[in-house]
């Protein structure tokens, strides 16, 4: 009943945990900014472009994609199971490649700025 191989979940669990802490601390502030309700000048093209042109800015923006995305991917997989979906392998093949796609797109876009 127990396979000899330890689970590979740690590979996705550590990003899940790190992303969860990051999202908990910083996403609310980020969302407030993108609504334009707080510091609306921050989301103007000039401000956003200036920030993203800087290498440190790129890293920060990349962090705002990578960490929440890998957190959400693993949690979506578990949540699907909680909602009764048993096709776990299929769900995993959607969420993790999905997260990878968003990660790659973020890198590509940031390099173009």
């Amino acid at each position, binding site marked *: 009943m127990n396979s000899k191989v330890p689970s590979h979940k740690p590979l996705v669990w550590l990003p899940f945990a790190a992303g969860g802490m990051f*999202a908990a601390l910083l996403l609310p502030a980020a969302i407030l900014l993108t609504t334009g309700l707080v510091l609306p000048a921050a989301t103007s093209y000039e401000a956003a472009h200036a920030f993203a042109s800087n290498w440190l800015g790129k890293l920060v*923006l990349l962090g705002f994609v990578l960490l929440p*995305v890998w957190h959400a991917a693993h949690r979506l997989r578990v949540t699907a199971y909680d909602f*009764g979906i048993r096709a776990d392998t299929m769900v995993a093949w959607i969420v993790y490649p999905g997260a990878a796609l968003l990660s790659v797109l973020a890198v590509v876009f940031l390099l173009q700025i």
Partner: protein
Amino acid sequence: MARRPYPQEVDRFKWWIADPHFNRPFYLDYMARESTCIFIALYAILFVWGLGALASGPEAYAGFIGAMQSTGGVILQLVILAFAVYHTVTWFILAPQGMKPMRMKDGKRVPAGRVVQALFAMWAGATVVTLLLVWVLIP
């Protein structure tokens, strides 16, 4: 006497809608907490769309920001914000339960409540610092 154990089965779709098992809707709270990931994923998709628009140029970006900061876009983000805050609150309350107890110099445990307070203080600090930094950096 012959044994004929009667199995107790649970429905995999309805288990969390069932009678509240505890003094509060425990399983419902759990599902709400887990569902926050749907909205975090949605925000990440919007964010990447924004990066793509920013890379394409001012017209594309104006389209993105126009949508995000339209009435509909703001309402959507406020819904996302509600779930993001619910994630924050539930994450901080759970966090000490995942850690070995921290100890002070005399070996006494730092109570879990303290850790939670510290996390909320960090959240307040991080929010203020982020907004301050952004304000300072706006050209």
